[in-house]
């Protein structure tokens, strides 16, 4: 790989993305490969994120690697005022690769410039979370057999949703049609629409969550959070509008899959879980294979 670290999804060329997805497929077939037997991986969680941490630790464990690190900043020297620079320089001595999650945007890029070992960004504030995007791509490719010519519906908070922005940027490398369904307050920011325009990709915006979804190959649901609304009345008006129910999937396409980065609150009703078109729990499992692929690729083991 050109970059030894994975900080932003834009760090990967399309070929590198595809190659990581191919490798992840091999890990899905054979998850236990002792490729990290002699490696120590640091997982530095400056803010807690249990799901992401467990997924990384599962990936590292299945590869036979050792894990050092902390699970939130309160249990580390960071609370004593140590700078990110000093923490990274120190940890750099003890490990072969750093996985880090940090609430401050750009922290992973800075860490990658300080560290000699590769850095994997496991989320830097509202900025980037590239392994999430890679597992989303893996899930889409696996269920749709290809990343080409898909119609992807992004639903919910499209204004602040980091995962949908990264997914849009990644999927825009293929011939994708996008449909955006959101309340007016949480519409897709104009810079992303301009970007799609510049590539000549089609997108459609809707404020109603209706049977328009019968055209979808993928529905990617996100949470509409109360704190995003300046007016609580506006939230009350929309909070039950962007909820997916099982009956809404009745006339949808055979190949449709419903994705969600998890955790969900009420935006996907539990009655959807039994539908074979729901895919969010398998999607989370795919995160382990994808992370196995990313770790071994960055360490030049695969």
């Amino acid at each position, binding site marked *: 790989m050109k970059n030894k670290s994975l900080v932003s999804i834009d760090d990967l060329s399309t070929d590198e993305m595809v190659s990581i997805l191919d490798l992840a497929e091999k890990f899905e077939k054979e998850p236990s490969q002792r490729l990290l037997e002699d490696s120590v991986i640091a997982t530095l969680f400056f803010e807690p994120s249990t799901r992401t941490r467990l997924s990384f630790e599962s990936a590292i464990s299945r590869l036979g690697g050792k894990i050092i690190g902390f699970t939130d900043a309160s249990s580390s020297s960071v609370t004593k005022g140590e700078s990110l620079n000093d923490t990274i320089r120190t940890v750099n001595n003890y490990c072969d690769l750093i996985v880090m999650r940090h609430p401050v945007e750009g922290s992973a890029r800075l860490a990658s410039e300080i560290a000699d070992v590769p850095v994997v960004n496991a989320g830097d*504030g509202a900025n980037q979370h590239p392994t999430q995007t890679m597992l989303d791509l893996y899930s889409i490719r696996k269920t749709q057999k290809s990343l080409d010519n898909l119609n992807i519906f992004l639903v919910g908070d499209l204004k602040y949703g980091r995962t949908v922005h990264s997914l849009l940027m990644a999927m825009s490398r293929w011939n994708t049609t996008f449909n955006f369904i959101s309340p007016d307050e949480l519409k897709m920011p104009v*810079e992303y629409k301009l970007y799609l325009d510049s590539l000549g990709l089609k997108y459609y915006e809707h404020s109603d969550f209706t049977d328009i979804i019968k055209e979808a190959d993928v529905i990617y649901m996100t949470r509409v959070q109360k704190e995003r609304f300046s007016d609580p009345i506006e939230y009350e008006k929309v909070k039950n509008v962007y909820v997916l129910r099982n009956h809404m999937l009745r006339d949808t396409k055979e190949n449709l899959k419903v994705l969600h980065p998890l955790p969900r609150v009420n935006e996907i009703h539990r009655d959807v879980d039994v539908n074979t078109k729901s895919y969010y729990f398998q999607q989370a499992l795919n995160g382990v294979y994808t992370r196995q692929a990313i770790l071994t690729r960055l360490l030049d083991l695969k």
Partner: protein
Amino acid sequence: MKEPKQLSVSAIENGTVIDHIPASALFKVIQILGLDKISNQITFGTNLESKKLGQKAIIKLEGIFFEDDDINRIALVAPEAKLNIIRAYEVVDKNVVKVPDQITGIAKCFNPKCITNFEPVTTRFKVVSKKDVALKCHYCEKITDQEHLVIL
């Protein structure tokens, strides 16, 4: 009658005159070019009348010639600045500043959650628009536009 004393700073023999600096940006330009740290003869004029800028400033530098990359660093604060290159008291060349493709230091990232506003790290930007200046932060990837531009 005694001749009135001429100021020795009115003209320069060899060097650069930077004209059309907004008066309010003079001290930023001095700082960006590090003019407070060199020993050459330098003359500043400020609050001079300008049809274009209202109040402009001018800097005359004896014995100093800039590389494009160095002088273009002032484009963020003095986008209209013009350079006159002087040799033997004559203007031998004229130049305008151009907004560069990359900006290192100089500007502050407007994003309060950006690492550059927490740790002592030099800011870095990719210039994504030159006309209405827009800078994409190398770290947080957010865009700082002209309206939010703060010079360090």
